[in-house]
């Protein structure tokens, strides 16, 4: 498997703060990688570095073999990097369908017209929002808006989907639905990088987990190895979590 996304010694500074510090990480094609870490660890900044919102201060980002360290967000989107936001960002004055059609047109490369709308409707069916296709995006519930983000992401025809806390604010049933959706997306061959606080979600989805702490990558590896790693337990999971896990296994 070749690496789809390669970060080499990526650093992002904001003034004197190193929000992301010397991160080297490679994401192979088809992987579902979990990115965890305490609040303020630099997870969202790392996503912003990859998408060009806050380009790296040092280091290199390579995507599908090309250097994308300095590309602007819209260029990253057209190359096949889609992201969802922690705080959902629909176009409130447009219909749900128009929201997805915009993604299909501008990132997916379709021209203005019926085809983009047809394709948008397909994605809306996939995420279960076809019934509200013609409602105003502002009228959706939070869970629906998160699903709208998925549909937008898919319409961008992504090679890499960056999911930034898509489950925050959802109830247990809604989280289960989102999980199924992410699995279905990954099954289509889309590489997924997911930022998540719910360990249940991370453990059931991810083939590998990377852990950030104070902007540094402190561990990366198979889920089981990560949750037993003493540094991860100390920085993020906590001793109680470790004991509970040990109890469950022993």
């Amino acid at each position: 498997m070749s690496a789809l996304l390669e970060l080499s010694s990526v650093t992002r500074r904001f003034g004197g703060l190193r929000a992301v510090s010397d991160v080297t990480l490679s994401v192979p094609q088809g992987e579902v990688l979990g990115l965890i870490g305490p609040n303020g660890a630099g997870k969202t900044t790392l996503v912003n570095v990859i998408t060009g919102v806050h380009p790296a201060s040092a280091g290199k980002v390579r995507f599908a073999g090309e250097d994308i360290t300095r590309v602007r967000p819209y260029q990253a989107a057209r190359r096949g990097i889609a992201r969802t936001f922690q705080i959902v960002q629909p176009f409130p004055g447009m219909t749900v369908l128009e929201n997805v059609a915009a993604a299909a047109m501008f990132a997916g490369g379709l021209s203005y017209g019926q085809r983009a709308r047809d394709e948008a409707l397909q994605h809306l069916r996939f995420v279960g929002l076809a019934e509200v296709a013609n409602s105003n995006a502002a009228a959706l519930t939070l869970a629906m808006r998160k699903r709208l983000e998925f549909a937008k992401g898919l319409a961008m025809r992504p090679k890499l989907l960056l999911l930034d806390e898509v489950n925050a604010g959802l109830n247990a049933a809604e989280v289960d639905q989102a999980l199924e959706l992410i699995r279905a997306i990954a099954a289509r061959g889309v590489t997924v990088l997911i930022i998540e606080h719910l360990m249940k979600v991370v453990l059931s989805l991810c083939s590998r987990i990377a852990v950030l702490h104070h902007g540094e990558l402190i561990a990366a590896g198979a889920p089981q190895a990560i949750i037993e790693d003493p540094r991860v337990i100390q920085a993020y999971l906590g001793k109680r979590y470790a004991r509970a896990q040990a109890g469950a296994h022993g």
Partner: protein
Amino acid sequence: MKRDASIALVLFALVALLPLSGEAYWMRLGTTMLMYGVLAMSWNFIGGMAGYPSFAVAAFFGLGAYAGAVAQKFGVPMGFAWVGAGLLALVFAALLGVALLRLRGHYFAIASLVVAEVLRELVNSMTGLTGGGMGLNLPIPAMASVDAQARFFFYVMLLLAAVTFTAMLITANSKLGFGLRCIQQNESAADMLGVDTTFYKVSAFMLSGVFVGVAGAVYASWVYYIEPPDVFDVLYSVKAIVMVLLGGAGSMFGPLVGAAAFLSLEELVWRNYLEVHTGVLGLMIVLLVLFLPKGLISLSQRLGRRGKLR
């Protein structure tokens, strides 16, 4: 889109009948209204569609007026001078857009506001070319009568308004217009979805400049004499915005409806309240914008909805 085009065709055809009235007053009012319509529709590209509150209308208008006048001073035929003025405004808008459209909201508004002032000072000081504060006389078009002249300029403005409307209709129903709507709703989200925001905004700004530039040049020929405070008047910017808000921002017929309504109000109020007319006019506009935030055009939608059975 077809429906809008047909409505516009009927509307423009009706306006084209105005010269039948034979009254100079109505001709002058009609020409002014069409010119205001061009300014308002032009502002709609950047202000209504992209959501950038531009005050650069006066800058484009004055630039076009002086470009057309100076070109004619050097012997360029009138028609070419007008088109040239439009092209100059287009290029100027592109350069200005790249610099100014990095700013958002109030900052952009203020930056675009000073452009007209800067141009006015420039024109004032370039006495050799522009006549400076003394103004510039234009050749009077050789025509049979004053009436024929009035008719001529009326039809030129009508043509310009029709071209501007067509450009607006095509833009609104294209990827460009859709991208501008995305930018207006949420610029950083649009960027994330693959909209080249700089290119789209500059395109909108260029469209908002080119027709105003031509309108300025035509205006200069129409009144034969221009001076800096007249054509770089900030009121052109303010009126364009007020007209669009009055009619309905971002809509197809809003700017035209707004221009007609504004000019009618202006005339009525001015005739009836000679001393306090600006105050009365301002009050009426404030009330209209407060109680009809989506403009007069939303009245027809409201009435339409009421008519439908639920």
